[in-house]
């Protein structure tokens, strides 16, 4: 190349350099727009995904209910950090001696965000919407999962009546233990009948309730903004705005909390919880435990039909050590298929001993002196009870390898995983449960209450009539002591038979900036922003 011909490109290069430097400097300059009108008190919650819909009757996920619970209210609600029931839209209630007739006395003077009054007619409109499966213009029948499948209200509720503008009566066909706690679930929130009548589709993206916050905007995949309701019956919330931001990645969400761009976050990585404990700007809040992670056996597989094999594998797992190492100090070694502190939790049942020697003997007795190889399915997503299933599975399998049981680790995406688990396609798999209302029926009946036989979709492959009978009796009873006794008996049988290995109960951690106060972590995740204060 001839000399002296470089001025052109060099000049261009310089120009490019200058421009890029300018751009870089302008980007690094402190943000000119200060954070969200600094005078307003904004509470920013970082959550792991976007809401799907904002119509409380149509949702079943915690990401959506976090939003709807601030906008809508139920007749009764969970009290602070417990599963005790306290009044909400119903000021009080009474129940007839036979446990079938419930009168709810509604709170006077309450109005929906659209200005229409809240009264017994409004409650009735919502119950009608939930209950009538066909011919009702307000819903697609099949979506009322909680009504039909969780609470079983279709079979339970006989009729509902407006007695006077502030009295609402529900008549049941049978007495029911879990009835009242079921009504506290987010899905039974009262929606403005006017909004229902106007455009029910619109309700999913433009919700109208009675709650402490009004809906402002929803930028999909990014955030939902709520504003304090000045006319709220319980008094205007302390904060002016609540913003629920979507930050998918656990690590990125924690970075944002550290940087002070959000005030609060759910689902931290376990190792970040340890980190947060040592950061004076952060605090760790724990949800009281209402969950269980377990390892399930397919008893249609002859190996796992043998209780000795199941017990041997339970004893071969050093759960304590794994929970200590991998749960960030937020989990305990589970003893039974309930969370500690729940009704029916049997304190007499000890920890499952870690004893690889005995496990090996038991395997030999069952006819597997040299162990065997099995598929081991781990969940593809993190859940509070298994904060990192893939890593936990590897640790469990390392323990099993020590007694000769070799794992072939496998997974599928979450939708397919659950379908196939239910279809009994896995010999061994991990799964867990987070309770809806704190009632033991909500755990144990789901685990063991039904048996459908081989090939019929059902997570439960354990055919034990005795346990099924005990569970049914407990469900039909409203006598606290009787239910307690029945659930304790279930726990005893389950320990002997070990249909599933109870792995861990966790107190799911939430992280917050240290100035956040008044946030009550609830075991059901029903957490209300109305009491939150932010004093930066």
């Amino acid at each position: 190349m001839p000399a002296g011909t470089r001025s052109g490109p060099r000049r261009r290069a310089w120009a490019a350099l200058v421009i890029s430097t300018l751009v870089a400097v302008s980007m690094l300059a402190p943000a000119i727009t200060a954070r969200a009108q600094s005078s307003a008190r904004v509470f920013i919650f970082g959550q792991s995904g976007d809401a799907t819909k904002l119509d409380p009757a149509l949702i079943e996920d915690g990401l959506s209910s976090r939003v709807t619970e601030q906008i809508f209210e139920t007749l009764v609600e969970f009290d602070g950090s417990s599963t005790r029931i306290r009044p909400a839209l119903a000021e009080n209630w009474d129940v007839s001696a036979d446990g079938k007739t419930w009168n709810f006395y509604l709170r006077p003077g309450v109005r929906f965000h659209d200005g229409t009054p809240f009264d017994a007619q409004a409650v009735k409109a919502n119950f009608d919407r939930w209950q009538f499966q066909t011919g009702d213009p307000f819903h697609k029948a099949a979506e009322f999962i909680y009504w039909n499948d969780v609470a079983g209200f279709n079979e339970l509720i006989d009729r509902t009546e407006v007695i006077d503008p502030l009295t609402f009566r529900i008549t049941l066909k049978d007495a029911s233990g879990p009835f009242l706690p079921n009504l506290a679930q987010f899905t039974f929130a009262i929606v403005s009948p006017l909004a229902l009548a106007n455009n029910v589709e619109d309700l999913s993206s433009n919700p109208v309730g009675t709650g402490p916050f009004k809906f402002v905007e929803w930028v999909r995949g990014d955030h939902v903004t709520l504003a304090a309701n000045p006319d709220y019956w319980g008094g205007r919330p302390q904060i002016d705005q609540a913003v629920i931001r979507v930050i998918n990645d656990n690590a990125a969400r924690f970075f944002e909390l550290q940087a002070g761009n959000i005030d609060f976050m759910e689902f931290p990585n376990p190792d970040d919880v340890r980190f947060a404990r040592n950061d004076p700007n952060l605090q760790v809040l724990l949800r009281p435990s209402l969950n269980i992670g377990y390892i399930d056996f397919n008893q249609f597989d002859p190996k796992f039909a043998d209780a000795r094999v199941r017990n041997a594998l339970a004893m071969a797992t050093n759960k304590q050590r794994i929970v200590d190492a991998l749960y960030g100090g937020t989990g305990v070694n589970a003893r039974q298929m309930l969370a500690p502190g729940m009704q029916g939790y049997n304190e007499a049942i000890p920890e499952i001993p870690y004893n690889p020697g005995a496990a090996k003997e038991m395997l030999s007795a069952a006819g597997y002196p040299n162990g065997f190889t099995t598929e081991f399915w781990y969940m593809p997503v993190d859940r509070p009870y298994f904060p990192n299933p893939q890593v936990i599975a590897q640790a469990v399998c390392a323990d099993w390898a020590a007694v000769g049981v070799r794992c072939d680790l496998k997974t599928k995406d979450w939708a397919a995983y659950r379908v196939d688990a239910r279809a009994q396609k896995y010999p061994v798999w991990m799964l867990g449960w987070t309770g809806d209302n704190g009632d033991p029926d909500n755990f144990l009946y789901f685990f063991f209450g039904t048996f459908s036989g081989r090939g019929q979709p059902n997570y439960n492959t354990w055919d034990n009539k005795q346990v099924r009978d005990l569970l049914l009796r407990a469900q039909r009873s409203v006598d606290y002591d009787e239910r307690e006794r029945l659930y304790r008996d279930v726990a005893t049988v389950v320990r002997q038979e070990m249909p599933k290995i109870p792995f861990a109960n966790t107190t799911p951690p939430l992280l917050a900036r240290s100035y956040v106060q008044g946030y009550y972590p609830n075991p059901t995740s029903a957490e209300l922003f109305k009491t939150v204060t932010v004093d930066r």
Partner: protein
Amino acid sequence: MLAYTLRRFLALIPVLAGVSVIVFLFLHLIPGDPAEAMLGDRATAENAARLRTAYGLDQPWSVQYALYMGKVLQGDLGRSVRSSNPVSAELAQRFPATAELALAAMLLAIGIGVPAGIISATRRGSAFDHGSMVLALAGVSMPIFWLGLMLAWFFGVQLKWLPFSARLDTGTRYVPLTGLLVIDSIVRGDWGLLVQTVRHLALPAIALSTVPMAIIARMTRGAMLEVLQLDFVRTAHAKGLRDFSVIARHALKNAMLPVVTVIGLQVGALLSGAILTETIFSWPGIGRWIYESIQFRDYPVVQSMTLFVAAIVVVTNLLVDLSYAALDPRVRYR
């Protein structure tokens, strides 16, 4: 030319039809359906069956396909099973985010890749040439998700220079005009918003631009080297034209052809990379949306969005082909 253009556009139809069939088949071959995915553990089998009926999922897939395509041809992209929102409405809200990110990445890639390639070619063997080509090689060798995380961790967390999630600071209210924040803020003269936008764009755009930038730089250098050997460039030199004008008028114009081709091919790669980038940087665009929709078996969203993205890819490539004529008068179409 017009006839040719028309013919090429018509040829896109079977391609897009093929794409729609393949997506449809895929979705129905994957285990699990929207009913199961939506209802979760708490639903009974009867309830799932009711939901299937409500959404027409109990029909044979050929019927479902015909119904779906019939709607698409009328401009109806369907409703999301998950959010019951019209796909088109959500697309309108989300696509600008991805478009802005992809455009920014593309501008970065071209703005740095092309000059770097030219300078490397004209100063072949210099330190700049070696340096930039090693960097370019490193660029194509880097997993984009790794680079993204490293950028977020280093510039966002350690140095605290730049934000690493979302398009705007939390609490910034903004009413979209075009949805492209850079353009909106300039149009409205809101400089604070512009700075905020650019700061938020910086890290994801850099992460997304790395691979195309490296490829463009390498391609530009190669094409330039070839052109610089050609007779007419030498002639131009011999005529005493200044080096700069030789490069600008003669060499560059001729070298642009392969470069433009490569740029066109990068569009698909950018949209692909957006899936990972948007996840790492919490970017509310369509890449993450498609990925989540696959997880939730949200058939209408996955079908319509795949078709949409495929349409962008094929149309871009067609435009690139057509631009050959504009760039090189020797190319003629019949």
